[in-house]
């Protein structure tokens, strides 16, 4: 069985009897019969935000570190020390602190993480143009046909990449290698952190058999519940069904269920996977129910979304408002525009109307706003007969943006942004 040493990148025909690489004597070996034949990978950074913080402040190295917003926010990332205490990402911060009172809580510094994420992405793109980012810290890579170029099988190239990221960026990653995206993503989770896991085509079906159906991509809460009603809990429970039966019952998802339950997935690694929506949200320090207070939180989010839309060169036709109640119930409301926008004003106008309809005295802990049904910026904010200044507002927004780029985000702001009391920001 082909064996790869992840430290000196030697390939052996058989795993050594003593479990150590005969060349470098290290123990980090991966053995798999299909090792050199597989070329679709999923790369996932380990506890990314927390790792970046630890890298930049070595005194944190052995401490439990949680990155997250405020006392009322949620955990964005927890380092592996904090995870020992049961802290998980997306956990409400108060629960995390109850589980791990000594944790060092750090406010997220997105600019820093983005920089590190882009550095990693650059290294991936140096290996193959087929890199499909899923978020700032994970991506799919298709290394098919790169053996000659990189003088080695994809597995070797990936081991080199992981070592290089560790050496040069002081961050660790976990790699899943398989024959398709679905299995590669599962694999990257198997051996975390600093992992390298392989799922071969031959073993895929057996591997999946006893796992829960929720592991399948696209099976969320609702579908999981409906499958459970039919007595389908484990992936093997899907096997007796004909493809046509599953399609009849679940539509396009039926085909996916049929195929994925057998380890099949024909989605390509698509470097141009289009952005579907752009949004921003914030969790309050204390619950808010007053519409005015909620609106004051909404405006800066609209500005953020507008800025991201402009940066991405996109306009959104649908505006969605998200609210989370004090009881953690999510509410979303959306509206479609007659033409796409990238203006904070328009996002705010729609968001405000949606918010005023939803703010019925309920206490909310979170508000968010997003734009979807995205199209090219050139088509956004077309002149409007009844709002002749709309095109001009778009120009103003772009001008404001360029001032901020040069002088910082506080350099210029709308009067509306000043109504929110904040540190050093007295209403003028």
């Amino acid at each position, binding site marked *: 069985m082909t064996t790869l040493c992840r430290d000196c990148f030697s390939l052996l025909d058989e795993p050594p009897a003593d479990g150590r690489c005969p060349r470098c004597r290290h123990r980090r070996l991966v053995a798999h019969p299909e090792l050199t034949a597989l070329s679709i990978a999923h790369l996932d950074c380990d506890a990314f935000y927390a790792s970046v913080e630890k890298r930049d402040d070595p005194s944190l190295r052995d401490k439990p570190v949680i990155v997250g917003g405020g006392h009322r926010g949620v955990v964005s990332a927890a380092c592996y020390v904090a995870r020992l205490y049961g802290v998980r990402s997306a956990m409400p911060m108060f629960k995390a602190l109850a589980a791990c009172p000594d944790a060092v809580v750090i406010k997220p510094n997105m600019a820093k993480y983005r920089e590190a994420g882009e550095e990693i992405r650059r290294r991936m793109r140096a290996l193959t143009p087929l890199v499909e980012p899923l978020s700032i810290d994970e991506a799919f890579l298709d290394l098919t046909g790169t053996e000659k170029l990189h003088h080695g099988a994809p597995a070797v190239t990936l081991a080199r990449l992981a070592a290089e990221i560790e050496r040069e960026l002081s961050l660790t990653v976990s790699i899943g290698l398989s024959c398709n995206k679905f299995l590669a993503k599962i694999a990257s989770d198997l051996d975390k952190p600093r992992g390298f896991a392989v799922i071969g085509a031959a073993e895929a079906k057996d591997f999946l058999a006893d796992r829960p159906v929720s592991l399948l991509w696209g099976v969320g809460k609702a579908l999981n519940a409906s499958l459970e009603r039919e007595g389908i809990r484990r992936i093997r429970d899907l096997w007796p069904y004909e493809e046509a039966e599953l399609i009849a019952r679940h539509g396009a998802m039926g085909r996916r269920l049929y195929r994925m339950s057998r380890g099949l997935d024909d989605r390509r690694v698509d470097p141009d996977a289009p952005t579907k929506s752009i949004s921003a949200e914030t969790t309050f320090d204390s619950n808010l129910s007053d519409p005015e207070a909620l609106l004051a939180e909404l405006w800066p989010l609209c500005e953020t979304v507008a800025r991201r839309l402009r940066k991405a060169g996109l306009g959104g036709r649908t505006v969605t408002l998200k609210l989370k109640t004090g009881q953690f119930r999510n509410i979303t409301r959306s509206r479609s525009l007659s033409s796409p926008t990238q203006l904070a004003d328009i996002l705010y106008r729609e968001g405000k109307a949606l918010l005023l309809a939803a703010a019925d005295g309920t206490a909310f802990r979170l508000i968010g706003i997003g734009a979807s049904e995205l199209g090219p910026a050139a088509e956004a904010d077309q002149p409007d*007969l009844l709002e002749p200044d709309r095109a001009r507002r778009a120009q103003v927004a772009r001008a404001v943006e360029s001032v901020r780029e040069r002088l910082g985000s506080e350099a210029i702001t709308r009067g509306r942004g000043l109504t929110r009391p904040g540190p050093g920001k007295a209403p003028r």
Partner: protein
Amino acid sequence: MKLTIERAALLRSLAHVQSVVERRNTIPILSNVLIEAQDGRLGLTATDMDLTIVEQTDAAVATPGATTAPAHTLYDIIRKLPDGAEVELSTGGDGQLTLRAGRSNFNLATLPREDFPTAGTTDLPHSFELQAREAKHLIDRTRFAISTEETRYYLNGIYLHAAKSGEVPVLRAVATDGHRLARFEMPLPSGAEDMPGVIVPRKTVNELRKLIDEVDGSLTVSLSETRIRFAFGATLLTSKLIDGTFPDYERVIPTGNDKIMEVDCKSFAEAVDRVSTISSEKSRAVKMSVAEGAVTLSATSPENGSAEEDVAINYSGPTIEIGFNSRYLLDIAGQIEGDGAEFAMADASSPTLVRDVTDSSALYVLMPMRV
């Protein structure tokens, strides 16, 4: 209640009222149609609280009475009955509606007649007659421009009001979504002189248009500031009006556009349709390069490629380039019945005026796109 009626007559009446009933209703009674039998007449009423349609038809009433039953279910049953069938509707003591036709027998759940919402009988002080033909024109020429945007809810209908065209009193219908505007006018019918400007909601417009498709005679329109009623044949359609202020549309209709292009409407529309095959799904942008003798229509898309087509025109101004949403061009071209369309342009970023050369009753304003 007990009555018999020919299937075709019942189907026709039900078809007229049932489309008002929303498929999904949170208030159960709104899924029902009100059935009233008396004096040799069957009355059917459906409502969504904003819009109510009542239709009367002849029936052999044995026992007068009234009930309500699920509109869509009833309609589906009648639709599936064989042609020529005699339908008997009756209520017994069990609170069900029994429907018999030939060998078919249905029992339908009902809700009490008293629970059915009735539109308060408000006074409708303004009333005038409109030929069905005129009403169809009025709707067709304008409704494509009605906005669906919820924020500017006051644009979600046709603005109907009395105005003056020069010295001539006219009845005007205007609709706009901010990208295009359509205005239709006709001589002011007597009785409409003092009518307030009202905004008739899109759903009402669409239901009315469907109902008058087969009508040849005239409609009686009655209205107040909050309600409008259309009466024709045995049908009565009553609707709430949109409570809002329609924007001052006059100021967006350009008056000084001096670059006048005349084009054969049919060949222009066909060329726009062909060229727009290339434009992106979302924007549908088409560029017009207008020069003496010909307009060049073109479209490019990074994914699809490009297209270009010349159409002969009558034009003698300076060359200008201007972009439009092809769908909007086609909507307007579809309403121009004469051969010629006239485009009066100012520049690439100002509203363009479009008219039927041989018909001055309608005009269209189109906002150019940046292309």
